[in-house]
């Protein structure tokens, strides 16, 4: 389990995060939503160990973040960033194999290649293994990196929970790619029992794919809980200054949020 206790982050004398507490359990998808500048990305960076925090503590499987060796931690938590720009072109399979770095001295090239192939099959890109990654579309490239993240966490023999942190993975992607990636994230949580923390902009995606939602505003948590508990008109207005209409989704068993604009009357 990831446990975050009273986390505070200051950057250049500015308080970015204040007293954030949350947890991510194995097998569940937790979405973090909030307006721009709410501190979502900083939260993810702090949890991942990239940004140091001024107060509080982050625990992975009950062990404080500071006590983890970087390679050990890399076997338990993987991060998918928004934009990854490779400096030199590589074959898709080679990109995915980079995920095996935390296990580098324990396995040979053939074993690495097998695991990478498995991960590519998971994201339905096995046929692209030998293609140069730059020849793929943006959405496909993001799925390759998703496979790399899967590859990084693959160690069936190791005990302890594993986690994926996804930083707006659907940003600048078309609708079908967004859908594919989020479905994959949910499947990974269910099938492999990984805890998934995902930053999203779209409340409807959060409503549909997350088990729990954390709504942030100006470095603090506005609301946290099931989508039904968090996605209320009051919370959304508080976090985004937008009036909205909340209904049951006409097709799926989840809520649907329709933004009405900041000045819309609230006759609904």
């Amino acid at each position: 389990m990831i446990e975050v206790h009273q986390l505070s982050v200051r950057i250049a004398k500015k308080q970015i995060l204040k007293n954030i507490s949350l947890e991510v359990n194995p097998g569940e998808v937790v979405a973090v939503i909030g307006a721009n500048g709410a501190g979502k990305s900083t939260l993810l960076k702090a949890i991942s160990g990239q940004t140091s925090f001024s107060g509080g503590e982050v625990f992975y499987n009950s062990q404080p973040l500071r006590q983890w060796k970087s390679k050990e931690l890399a076997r338990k938590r993987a991060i998918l960033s928004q934009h990854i720009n490779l400096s030199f072109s590589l074959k898709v399979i080679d990109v995915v194999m980079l995920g095996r770095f935390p296990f580098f001295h324990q396995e040979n090239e053939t074993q690495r290649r097998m695991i990478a192939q498995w991960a590519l099959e998971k994201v339905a890109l096995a046929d692209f293994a030998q293609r140069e990654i730059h020849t793929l579309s943006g959405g496909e490239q993001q799925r390759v990196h998703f496979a790399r993240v899967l590859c990084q966490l693959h160690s069936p023999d190791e005990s302890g929970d594993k986690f994926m942190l996804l930083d707006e993975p659907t940003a600048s992607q078309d609708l079908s790619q967004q859908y594919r990636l989020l479905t994959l994230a949910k499947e990974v949580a269910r099938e492999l029992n990984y805890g998934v923390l995902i930053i999203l902009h779209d409340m409807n995606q959060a409503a549909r794919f997350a088990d729990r939602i954390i709504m942030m505003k100006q470095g603090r948590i506005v609301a946290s809980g099931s989508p039904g508990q968090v996605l209320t008109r009051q919370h959304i207005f508080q976090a985004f200054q937008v009036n909205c209409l909340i209904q049951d989704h006409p097709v799926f068993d989840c809520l649907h949020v329709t933004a009405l604009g900041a000045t819309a009357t609230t006759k609904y």
Partner: protein
Amino acid sequence: MEIAEPPIKEKSKSPSQSVVSKDALLSGKTVTWLLTAILLLAALFSISTGAYKLSFDQMLEVFAQTDQEASPIRYLLLDIRLPRVLLAVVVGAGLSISGVAIQGLFRNPLADPTLIGITSGGMLFAIGGIVFSGSVLAGVSSFLGYTTIALFSFIGSLLTTLLIFRMATFGGRTHVTTMLLAGIAVTALAGAITGLMTYFSTEDQLRDITFWTLGSLSSANWKVLLIVSPAVALTFLMLMRITPALDLFMLGESEASYLGVNVQRTKWIVIIFSALAVGICVSVTGIISFVALIVPHILRLLTGARHRFLMINSALLGAILLLIADTAARTLIAPAELPIGVLTALLGAPFFIWMLMQARGNSKLGI
């Protein structure tokens, strides 16, 4: 309403059941063997070629001699040709592996030690060492001999690498324009100070300085090799150790650290050891440009960007390239000699222009 479900995933198999596909027309290993063979042939050819041609039989004869009797042929082979060939091999390898590492660190194929000023920094300090060795540094110089100049050159290269890296890397990424402009600035500054120093230098020192700016392997001897070889060998060993980490640098520093790479340590190893190899090589041969740019680029096109074989093969191809260039430099207008730096620049500058043309509109190169 009907929602079409895209085919998200096939039934997943466990990794062991997957088919392992082998790829690539030329594997890294094949290229290694190929280059090793070419290097040996080139070395043999280079030893035999020159103002006086040595036949294979003559060479065997010298090596077969047990009484170590002094003869002109023996002297030519063991004290002139062999050290020179070995120096070309070592310097070519040293410059190329530094190029690979620096390009990996800067995440850009245009990061060539000469273009970004590392070589100039080394040269400036080396020349400073020569000019001041007659005065302030006299004591140090006589004590350490060759090593002093090499040490100065190393420090110059190290400081320049640090400066350029600090200047060009901010906000988590390297800015190529800043990197190249900083390189131009450093090269100009080094050129100006070098020019200034020529006024204070004696006749002999002036000749040394000219030699430095044009590049030459004519100072090859066993003593010099004793300084350069360990530096390049150590650099090679250290850089080979971090090739998996350099692979991850392709994703960016943040991603590399997420995957467990000790980013700071990797950076320091690249900076210190590239500067060591470049600095020491420059102190002996002067400025030999473009080798570190061309060699890794060709090999990336041939066998891909993964650093393990890129590093090994760059060492080999760099050695071959410099060996051939040096053989040409000392035979084209024999018995006189062309400066090798002039030859590599004649070859490398058009190549660089070609790379820039290729890079136009290619955001990957960040231009």
